[in-house]
């Protein structure tokens, strides 16, 4: 049935597109562009401030664009911070957490969504409940445990406590539950093991969800400040986000132009990653047969 409807859908969509290749579509576009611009005003401020000389950052009257464009802030970042090492550490930490969390969360989520067993619902609630304690309350016990294992100032200490997380399990479980059961049941009738069903049927169909979770996990860890600061007291292990705090001067004064430049460079890998991944959201629809 799916195979039959697919070309139909494509045709219909193309027809829709053609029908709306009219002014209405572009008015919609223009209107939304204005909305987007308004929403992005703070981001635009961040970007343009990175190119302002220090004397303009808090000048009055305030302006969006610098009067005098400068790259000094970027130069300062590279001269004041060991940027390469910080970025590499960030990739190691955020990337490591993302890889393990995606693997472990999807396995557990599959069990909760598909391998109906007694107590699965209670287990799910217990897992969700663990999200409800603020991490400020558990940070010190976690730290003591990591320290006991001798993992302070190591990637193991940074990554292991986050190698699975309740949010990811809950998130993927919701998506796995939404997938029509016909597919995996068909595979089971064909004699596939649960592992095969998981790997060859469920995972390929959950690509948008996996990418979404991957992005969230990566972004959250990349931007996390307190975690790397607490678990790595040695500056050699610092991440880009924790490294940027070192720009703070006496009295908590932050050279804002430099800070914006640093933030811009720090956010670039995330933005590029999302730009690449969001395409897959569309493609995955076309590539999964059941749609």
């Amino acid at each position: 049935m799916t195979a039959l409807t697919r070309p139909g859908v494509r045709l219909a969509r193309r027809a829709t597109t053609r029908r709306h290749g009219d002014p209405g579509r572009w008015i919609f576009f223009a209107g939304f562009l204005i909305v987007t611009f308004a929403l992005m005003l703070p981001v635009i401020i961040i970007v343009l401030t990175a190119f302002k000389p220090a004397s303009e950052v808090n000048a009055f009257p305030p302006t969006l664009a610098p009067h005098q464009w400068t790259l000094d802030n970027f130069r300062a970042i590279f001269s004041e911070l060991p940027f390469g090492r910080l970025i590499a550490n960030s990739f190691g930490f955020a990337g490591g957490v993302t890889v393990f969390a995606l693997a472990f969360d999807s396995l557990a989520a599959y069990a909760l969504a598909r391998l109906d067993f007694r107590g699965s619902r209670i287990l799910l609630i217990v897992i969700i409940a663990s999200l409800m304690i603020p991490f400020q309350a558990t940070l010190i016990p976690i730290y003591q445990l990591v320290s006991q294992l001798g993992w302070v100032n190591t990637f193991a200490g940074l990554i292991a406590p986050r190698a699975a997380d309740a949010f990811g399990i809950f998130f993927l479980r919701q998506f796995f539950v939404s997938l029509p059961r016909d597919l995996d049941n068909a595979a089971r009738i064909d004699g596939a093991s649960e592992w095969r069903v998981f790997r060859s049927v469920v995972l390929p169909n959950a690509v948008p969800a996996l990418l979404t979770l991957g992005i969230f996990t990566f972004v959250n860890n990349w931007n996390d400040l307190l975690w790397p600061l607490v678990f790595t007291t040695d500056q050699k292990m610092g991440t880009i986000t924790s490294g940027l705090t070192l720009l703070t001067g006496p009295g908590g004064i932050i050279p804002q132009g430099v800070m914006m430049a640093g933030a811009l460079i720090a956010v670039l890998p995330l933005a590029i990653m999302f730009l690449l991944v969001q395409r897959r959201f569309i493609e995955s629809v076309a590539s999964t047969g059941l749609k």
Partner: protein
Amino acid sequence: MKKLIAVVATAAVAALGLTGCAGSTGASSSSEKVSLTFWHGYTEADGGVLDDIVKKFNASQKNITIKTQTKTWAVIDDTLLPALSSKNGPDIVAMTSDRLPVYAKKHALVDLDDFYAKPSSNTSKLKAEAVSMETVDGKKYGVPSGFVPLSVIYNKTLFAKAGITTFPTTWDEWVSDAKKLTVDSNGDGTPEQYGLVLPDHATVGNGIWPSLFEGNGGSITNAAGTKATIDSKANVETLTYWANAIRQDKISPTGTDGIAADKLFTAGKTAMEVGGPWMAGVATASKIDYGLAAIPAGPKAQAASAIGISLGVTAQTDTAKQQAAEKFLAYFNEKSTATTWSLGSGWPPLRTDVSAADVDSNATVASLTKIAPNTRALLPGVVDSTDVLTAIDTATQKAVAGGDPKQLLGDAQSSIQQALSK
């Protein structure tokens, strides 16, 4: 992956066997080599100077090596507790002085009374007011590494435009000059330029209002830090005086905090700001021609609250490490080190026998040293300073917004008393 599962399983097993106590660091006898970790928040050029002092100390010692780690003050405060709770923390730590009483009270720092008693500690010539920051429940828990008065930074260009040639030295002159510097050119009731920015909450080092209260003979607590004294008649007068100047004469915007005040000064929107010594560098970067002056005297006294930094020895040190740390502190207190440090940090010297002339190679330090004699430690020995400061902020912000100073200070009095008796 299998390997990681194994590791994690081990972790889980370890976790179940845990009782919450941390492992010991192992004792070391005095003849062995001792290596210490030192966390500080001097992130600028001052950090380089401090690291040099440590290096020189290391070179002078056969068995002691100190390793410094630079973090921001906020980061030190956020990470010290977990680190020390597992004995992974620093052996020597620099912290802002408002934080020292809490750590002392909770036994995170070592009591240094015996150290102070030894002549070799070089502590006898330290400024008494600076040392008072280190005293909690009658015992000393640290050595000052910074003690600087709040001062007024002013915009010389705006002063020249208003025709003011000498900086005011009394409150009345201060307010009248500020009025001259306040400009409302379009007459809409909101000045385009303010004479002064006087934050009404979260002020620099939380010290502006305590400085003003003291200028009129008032105080926040008694000397021992056990009784609230904020609802005095003198303080009601002070708060009324300044709330009027801000509300009626509009010499300052309302609702600003210390950070917003810094921005207004660098934007050239205000002619004066009460700030820390670092504002000199910020003003230079913002291309503002500035001068530094003492906070003008109130009816009773010229007083300025201090921004203080202290060095403490943490409770994770064993006897050998504590002795080594004390050796460093003694070295740090030597006259020559103190002079180097004052010049390098840009803060006034901590010893009474280092004069302004000794540090005249740094103009900022020299001028700060001249106004330093009346510097007062802020809430020395008060453990729950956060609640005390919030109570002050609430009173001042509400008064500047139009509240009744007498009633507000009465409210603050009971909140502060409650915080002190916790």
